[in-house]
């Protein structure tokens, strides 16, 4: 069932994001071309500048656009008219919500790959760029260690899951209202955002502040990468647990407190 749900939703989501991804790739190619042409035709430097500007704009737009499409699709299929079909499918609500979270995650991964691809195209065969990047990577691994970067990358992707569980939970509260569902969902999201902030402070900062030895270590110059990695790992676990909590809250609201128009 999970695979079936994902198959159809992903198809629909990809159709939605494809235009902006294509625009990004085209802008990368065009901007790179202008780059080459500017060396020979200096009067093109202004259009080249614009192309670069639009390219950067597109790179920033892609993740936001993707997030937006995932959230809108979720809202339409779980709260609006299409919800009458979704919620009468012979599928458990928990499976339904899980499929949407995974879909969102997959789409954010794809958008990340697209951005990397676009940047690679934009920097294609520019003297020394890839050598320079490689140097930066190797030296950072030397200083901070591979584990650190692995944790950072995992945290990056977990962040997507965290975002979607929070948004979906907010929507699950917003849909309970008879009027202004969309606005109320927004309000609940802000509330959840602040709750997350408070939880982060309480669980991550206060214990460190209260434990003198930890506090001193963090403030000293000899803070080890292992300590930082440990700290980041704890933050990761807390984020994961909170995502799970928001997931269960969403499923509960959509099962027992469903209120379609």
């Amino acid at each position, binding site marked *: 069932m999970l695979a*079936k749900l994902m198959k*159809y939703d992903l198809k*629909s989501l990809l*159709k939605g994001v494809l235009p902006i991804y294509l625009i990004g790739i085209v802008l990368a190619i065009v901007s790179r071309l202008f780059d080459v042409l500017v060396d020979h035709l200096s009067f093109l430097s202004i259009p080249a500048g614009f192309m670069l500007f639009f390219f950067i704009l597109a790179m920033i737009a892609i993740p936001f656009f993707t997030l937006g499409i995932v959230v809108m699709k979720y809202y339409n*299929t779980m709260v609006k*008219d*299409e*919800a*009458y*079909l979704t*919620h*009468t*499918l*012979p*599928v*458990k609500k928990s499976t339904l919500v899980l499929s949407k979270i995974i879909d969102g995650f997959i789409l954010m991964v794809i958008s990340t790959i697209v951005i990397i691809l676009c940047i690679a195209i934009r920097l294609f065969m520019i003297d020394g760029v890839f050598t320079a990047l490689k140097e930066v990577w190797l030296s950072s691994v030397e200083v901070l260690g591979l584990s650190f970067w692995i944790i950072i990358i995992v945290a990056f992707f977990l962040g997507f899951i965290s975002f979607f569980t929070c948004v979906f939970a907010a929507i699950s509260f917003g849909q309970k209202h*008879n009027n202004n569902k969309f606005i109320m969902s927004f309000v609940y999201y802000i509330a959840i955002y602040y709750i997350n902030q408070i939880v982060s402070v309480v669980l991550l900062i206060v214990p460190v502040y209260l434990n003198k030895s930890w506090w001193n270590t963090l403030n000293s110059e000899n803070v080890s990468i292992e300590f930082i990695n440990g700290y980041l790992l704890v933050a990761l676990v807390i984020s994961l647990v909170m995502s799970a909590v928001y997931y269960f809250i969403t499923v509960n609201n959509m099962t*027992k*407190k*469903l*209120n*379609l128009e």
Partner: protein
Amino acid sequence: MSLVEFHNVDKNYGAKKALSDINLKIERGHIYGLLGPNGSGKTTLIKLINDLLTPTSGEVLINGLKPGVESKKIISYLPERTYLNMNLRVEEVIAYFKDFYTDFDEDKAHKLLDKLKIDSKTKLKTLSKGTKEKVQLILVMSRKADLYILDEPIGGVDPASRDYILNTILENFNEGSSMIICTHLIADIERILDDVIFINDGKIVLNESAEEIRSVRKMTIDNLFREEFKC
């Protein structure tokens, strides 16, 4: 054990009582008309059967079980609105239904669509409103369900389409299955009803066999309705 049972069901939206003390049995092989004015609680009752709402108190049982995954397998529901993804083509929606409902009869759906001359490659959003509604009806009636629930299947539709819809319902209605038709256009459908349920202000005010009403009260259902719900 009846197909659907309501035991002392209340449903409140905050202070508003949408349904009060509903006791109801839906038997197999019968066509029910759920008739009542707007705001009477028809849609709320339908949503409770479809697990789109949970009762405030009391219980709804389908084949003896609470509404859930199992009941959704045997209920085919036509809501009052366009509930399909309009960006899909007709053939994609059919594939979707086939994938999720094991009782979906793909051949029947294609046959019915061919009769309407609807090309399966058409995008739903290009169809007229009336045609969209017919497509939704075809999908619902192409399932071999135990219970069909049609919410206002002929509201807002021209008379020729109305005939088509009612004819489709009768010709494709699975023997042994039950059906609940929610409507306020009583005169058009009363002949196909076995049983008639009148609902008003969240309460059931009548639950009788249509032929009984005709032989005992010597009235059409439409006239009885007008009498019961006189303003």
